[in-house]
């Protein structure tokens, strides 16, 4: 440094991103435990695609490649996207999604620090709109194969499907995959089944989907680590979860037969992942604490609306993107008062 200050804390961007990646590990570990190792293939594919696309875009934009590849931000985008899409999907699904996220949603908007939208969610949105069929074939949790799917694939078979598109003799895709807990809920609600009856199905565990609720606990644990390490502030997770709970709670109290309990909404789908990892992306979320509360509350409201009344099973991605658009306005109107301009004195 040639001008003051001549000292600084040694933290850097790569360290922050690395801590977020580490915070994802408990959830990923539980994912592998309940759903098999295919998710690791997705994550690996996403990581390679993310780094490769980032290197390509940096070269095209005439920027230095090494410092940006080392900052782990592309890896994080890849991992979040991989965790949002079915692990038993053709390899090109995660590659297309990740490439789009990095190239279009991140670099065409200006690269690190300049993206208006959360890149992982943009990738997800592109995939779910363009390939709705592949995006709804999820893997069943272990040990429940009998009630949910006809057969379970071993890891080798999963690899074969992901890369070659070939399934073992006699099995179709429908036989080895199923809809998500949220998707199942929506379908059966449309068939006018009451909530209690739906929740008796073997796909559901204590609070939400069997297996996936445990993964949500894993992400919650990681999220609490992020809070303790002061990587994120409490405003977004707390505002999101509280708002989601309150809205779901109101509907549930009014009509428990048609609207599922609030805790279900917490532990189903990507709520916890969204609250702690996706909405908290610093670049696309507000920079003021009041703004963060409004942003997260809005996202929770939209998540609930999309899940309950909208066309998609889970609303976290679109809720994030819609609130991302509002961020500049939110930030403008939630500026805290400056020292010496606060008006009141003790």
């Amino acid at each position, binding site marked *: 440094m040639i001008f003051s200050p001549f000292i600084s804390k040694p933290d850097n961007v790569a360290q922050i991103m690395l801590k977020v990646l580490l915070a994802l590990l408990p959830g990923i570990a539980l994912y592998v435990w309940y759903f098999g190792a295919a998710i690791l293939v997705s994550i690996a594919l996403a990581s390679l695609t993310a780094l490769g696309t980032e290197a390509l875009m940096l070269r095209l934009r005439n920027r230095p490649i090494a410092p940006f590849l080392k900052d782990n931000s592309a890896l994080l985008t890849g991992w979040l996207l991989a965790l949002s899409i079915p692990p038993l999907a053709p390899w090109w699904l995660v590659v297309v999604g990740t490439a789009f996220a990095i190239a279009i949603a991140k670099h065409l908007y200006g690269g690190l620090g300049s993206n208006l939208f959360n890149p992982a969610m943009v990738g997800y949105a592109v995939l779910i709109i363009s390939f709705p069929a592949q995006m709804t074939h999820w893997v069943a949790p272990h040990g429940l194969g009998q009630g949910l799917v006809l057969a379970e694939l071993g890891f080798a078979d999963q690899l074969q499907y992901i890369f070659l598109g070939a399934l073992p003799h006699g099995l179709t895709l429908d036989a080895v995959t199923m809809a998500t807990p949220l998707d199942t809920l929506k379908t059966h609600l449309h068939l006018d089944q009451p909530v209690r009856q739906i929740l008796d199905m073997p796909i559901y565990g204590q609070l939400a989907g069997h297996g996936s609720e445990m993964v949500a606990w894993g992400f919650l644990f990681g999220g609490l680590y992020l809070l303790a390490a002061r990587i994120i502030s409490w405003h977004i997770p707390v505002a999101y979860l509280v708002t989601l709970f309150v809205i779901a709670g109101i509907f549930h109290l009014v009509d428990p037969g048609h609207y599922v309990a609030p805790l279900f909404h917490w532990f189903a789908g990507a709520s916890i992942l969204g609250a702690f990892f996706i909405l908290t992306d610093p670049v696309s979320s507000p920079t003021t604490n009041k703004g963060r509360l409004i942003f997260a509350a809005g996202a929770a409201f939209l998540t609930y609306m999309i899940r309950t009344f909208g066309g998609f099973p889970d609303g976290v991605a679109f809720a994030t993107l819609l609130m991302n658009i509002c961020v500049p306005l939110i930030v403008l109107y939630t500026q805290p008062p400056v*020292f010496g301009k606060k008006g009141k004195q003790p």
Partner: protein
Amino acid sequence: MRKLYHFHGGIHPPSNKTQSTRTAIAHAPLPTKLIVPLHQHAGEAAKPVVQAGDHVLKGQLIGMPEGFVSSAVHAPTSGTIAAVDMQLIAHPSGLPNLCATLIPDGKDEWAALKPVDYRNHSSAELQHLLRMAGVVGLGGAAFPSDIKLRIGKQKINTLILNGAECEPYITCDDMLMRERAAEIVQGAEMLRSMLDADEVLIGVEDNKPEAVAALQQAITANGMNQEVVAIPTIYPGGGAKQLIRVITGLEVPSGKLPTDIGVQCFNVATAYTVYRALAHGEPLLSRVITIAGNVRHAQNYEALIGTPIAELVALSEALPDTDRYIMGGPMMGIPLPSVHVPAVKATNCIIAASAKIFPPSPPAMPCIRCTRCVEVCPADLQPQDLYWFAQSREFGRAQAFSLFDCIECGACSYVCPSHIPLVQFYRFAKSEIRAREHDKQLADQARVRHEYHEQRIEREKRERADKLAAREKTAQAAKLASAPPLTPQQQAEQAGLEAGRAHIRELAQSEVGHSDEGVTK
């Protein structure tokens, strides 16, 4: 227990103070030469009143204050003025400034001193004495203290003495408070009397328990009605606005001065200097300077103003891998263009820097809007937005986001994980805005001058035309007057010619009328 308040943010950098508080303040030996700049204070430079070859005594006036905001400069010791010329000074630009070079004669002979009893003089008289004694703020800004004592109609409730010393490495105020608390306390009483303040509060960070104890002892021993307030150690707790907020809970309104809310703030070393100037008649000739950092023994020295920094640093033995020198602390200090510059009234600390203690920062990454800077800003600003606007040259929006409320403390740069030199961007934006306002002022003045110039040309043209017309008229009148009187025959001829002209004019008129009729038909 006095209630204390908080300001938003702040950081806790490693303090690095114990290295220089192990030994008492040492007296630096008389240097080989003294280079005394004539502009060591805020405001206008002093005008030299000596020239090369003059012999001066210790404390003799060598620079006369000039203008409303100015202060005097004195010879720090007796000797001969070798030159009054441009010399390299402690400014990061490396530009030289006017200095008086003094070669000491070793006798350290004082000029006549005139101590006063402050109780027997009016505030205005004392202010003049302080101005002529060269007393300026020794906290770093070097603002002439006499100006700060002019209060006009405001009532000053609280006089605060700033003994916070929040920057790492700097310990000169700490040692001064430990060793010379009595003079500080008496100086504070003089200041209180001049301001007619109701109370005196001395703010000291709680990492200086010895200084707190020494001041308390001095207050009791001298029977003063003053209070030592131990404040939490946090940077930048020694910033005037932050200190006022912590001790009184009041926030100095943006764009206003502390006196506007009934508070005035002086550094403890300034209070000490005021005491020496009034009670002993001594002008400001020396100050305590901390030499720290990459040196063999960090230490505080009482050094004469104008001492070459190189000679001071040599006393503490800078280690061979020292690559540059910083005047001030690591958060807000300035890099010296060379070690061969003189110490001035604002020099509170010299840090010998090396790659080990001040490692070079990695290249800056883009801002990821993590808002760690917002968390630490003591002025409640949005540093990442100010950076965004400064970088894109949107200076209007930067001002709207309170750019000029930034105190440039450096806390934001300290915590930034992208290692962006944020304060540099704010300095850039502020200087661009000031330059534009200056240009606009010049342009406005030029426009007014131009308009006046145009008016003047018009006026001159009109005046010339009027003059010409007037001259014509007088010439005509003169011609008529001087013409010989006409004979009756000539008169008759003139009348006949006139009648003929009138007839022709009539005919012309009626013809015009006919032709008009012809046209309209």
